[in-house]
């Protein structure tokens, strides 16, 4: 019952006028960001972090989380209306949402997406409320070794589970970690890695420089190249009668919505997976288990419900390790985590003791955000349809300008703005060659803590590396991490053996 008391206190914080206003604003901004092709939650949150310096940290994180949520709802709008996913998290929504829209049933798809998102979001926040405090309590006993092992696990999930090119994934993690060490040695304070003897590198590279560079400038360059042709927008007929009939049909898919939410939630907890694979997996599972599975892809409501419930559940899931362990579950939560450090808050299990207002205010605000996102999504659909007509040649320069000015505001050094441009351009070129960039962003956020924990562990154990394996919790985590890292090798051996037997036969 203690949890309910905390949650009640959290609602009191979430309902403060400033916070409720920010939730509503955040949800609407998020819906817009999610709906615009080329912008997803991670882009919106990265670009808008500098704007949150205006309000206290609790309100700021409530605002950013509302954007995250809104973007998950909004992604569906362009998936359905334009057939272009508004964000990578809504890719699976196009599979059935687009056919529905082409049949003249866009309103049904939009309602299904909104209701499913609400369902997935709310169910996962309830799970979050139940899981987070006990997990944080366990995590409080973690020492340096355990925390380092967890970080190793976070990086290992990228190598083992993300499905990207393996050497390129490892490269991305390593360069992110190296960039986090630029400036000075955290223990001795001596200058370190002052690249090309440029004095700007005498201080640390702020993670926002990399995040805005990649997700603001790089993403825009990418979208400009990819979105060459103009797209056709479907028409949506919206009347009260049809709305009610649609609601009824969507309610019938609650089983799919429940399994998808649970799946999305647990996939969302893993750092390398997240809302995108979560929604694709939920779509796959729904297609296999649903009685009309063979109609998936031709315009089945359940095919919209599954990915939309899952992607919202996954975004809540990714907050669980961020708040309880200090390990982000997605690129977006990595940016939230980095932002907390800027605001002077130490992420990790001690948050539940030191910053109960932030933790519970945020949790309660997620319930509120879901509610407002549902309302906004249903009642503002005409507005978003109008906004979607906004030409990219107006949106793109505004995003570039926001990135540059926001990037300057974060550190107030022009050196960092130039660096941001370099990261944006290099990130864009590397992305064309299939280098995954999310691991680098996660790595630059976790880098300073990872190095500190590693060095402290080694000092305690007097240089004995077995310290990570001999302690029960860190040992278990390390073994899982090593297994994940080696997984591609196992796969390679298996493929080779199979090929061997094939050629022998």
């Amino acid at each position: 019952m203690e949890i309910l008391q905390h949650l009640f206190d959290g609602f009191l914080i979430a309902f403060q006028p400033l916070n409720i206003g920010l939730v509503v604003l955040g949800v609407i901004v998020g819906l817009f960001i999610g709906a615009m092709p080329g912008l997803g939650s991670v882009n919106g949150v990265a670009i808008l972090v500098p704007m949150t310096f205006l309000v206290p940290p609790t309100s700021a994180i409530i605002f950013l989380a509302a954007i995250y949520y809104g973007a998950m709802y909004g992604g569906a709008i362009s998936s359905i209306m334009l057939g272009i996913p508004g964000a990578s998290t809504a890719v699976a929504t196009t599979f059935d949402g687009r056919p529905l829209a082409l049949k003249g049933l866009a309103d049904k798809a939009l309602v299904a997406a909104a209701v499913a998102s609400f369902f997935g979001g709310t169910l996962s926040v309830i799970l979050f409320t139940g899981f987070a405090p006990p997990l944080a309590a366990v995590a409080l006993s973690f020492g340096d070794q355990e925390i380092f092992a967890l970080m190793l696990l976070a990086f290992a999930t990228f190598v083992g589970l993300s499905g990207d090119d393996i050497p390129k994934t490892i490269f991305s993690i390593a360069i992110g970690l190296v960039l986090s060490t630029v400036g000075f040695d955290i223990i001795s304070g001596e200058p370190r890695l002052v690249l090309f003897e440029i004095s700007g590198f005498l201080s640390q590279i702020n993670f926002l420089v990399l995040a805005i560079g990649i997700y603001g400038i790089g993403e825009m360059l990418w979208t400009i190249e990819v979105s060459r042709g103009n797209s056709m927008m479907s028409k949506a007929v919206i009347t009260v009668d049809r709305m009610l009939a649609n609601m009824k049909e969507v309610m019938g898919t609650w089983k799919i919505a429940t399994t998808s939410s649970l799946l999305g939630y647990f996939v969302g907890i893993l750092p390398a997976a997240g809302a995108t694979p979560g929604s694709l997996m939920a779509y796959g599972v729904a297609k296999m288990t649903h009685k009309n599975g063979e109609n998936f892809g031709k315009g089945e409501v359940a095919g919209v419900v599954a990915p939309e419930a899952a992607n919202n559940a996954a975004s809540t899931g990714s907050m669980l390790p961020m708040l309880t362990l200090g390990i982000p579950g997605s690129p977006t939560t990595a940016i939230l985590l980095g932002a907390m450090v800027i605001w002077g808050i130490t992420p990790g299990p001690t948050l539940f003791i030191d910053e109960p207002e932030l933790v519970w205010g945020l949790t309660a605000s997620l319930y509120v955000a879901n509610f407002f996102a549902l309302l906004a999504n249903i009642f503002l659909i005409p507005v978003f349809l109008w906004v979607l007509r906004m030409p990219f040649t107006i949106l793109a320069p505004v995003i570039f300008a926001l990135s540059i000015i926001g990037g300057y505001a974060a550190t107030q050094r022009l050196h960092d703005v130039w660096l941001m441009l370099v990261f944006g351009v290099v990130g864009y070129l590397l992305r064309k060659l299939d280098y995954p960039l999310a691991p680098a962003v996660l790595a630059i956020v976790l880098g300073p803590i990872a190095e500190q924990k590693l060095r402290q562990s080694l000092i305690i154990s007097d240089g004995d590396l077995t310290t990570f394996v001999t302690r029960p919790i860190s040992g278990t985590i390390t073994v899982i991490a090593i297994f994940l890292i080696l997984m591609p090798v196992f796969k390679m051996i298996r493929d080779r053996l199979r090929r061997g037997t094939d050629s022998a036969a």
Partner: protein
Amino acid sequence: MRRAEITTAVLLAAFSIYLMWKSAELPIGWLPEEGPGGGAFPFWLAVIMLGSCIWIIVNWFRRSSPPSQSSEPFMDNYAVKRFALVGGGVTAMIGLIHILGVFGSLPLFLIYYIRFLGRHSWATTLAIALSAPVVVFFFFDVALRIIMPKGYLEPLFLPLYDIFL
């Protein structure tokens, strides 16, 4: 695409070696009483970077990664032109901040992009290009007290400082 893949991998490998050499300016071994030296963490990570680059290069020779099999150009004419126009515009905007400050270079950039790349009407262009700096000034300079760089236009802002700051 194939050529871009190998060029990038070699450049990144060279950068990794540079980072290794640079990390080695601090002790990279074990210091008695102090634990690992300050350069150890980045040094070994740079070694991992180099290792992955070599792996990427090996994959290139074996043609086992998608970009090393692709015969498509890395960037076609459209992509190169867009990249030059947009990237050049952004670079020029940041460069001009040094001279004209944010409030000079921001409207110029918006006019360049919206009017000349986007071919929108002058009315739309000017509405956005002239309102953006005002919003930025009141949000950052006034509300957040984060003073945006003004370059040589600084004197023009002194009266505004007197009123709002």
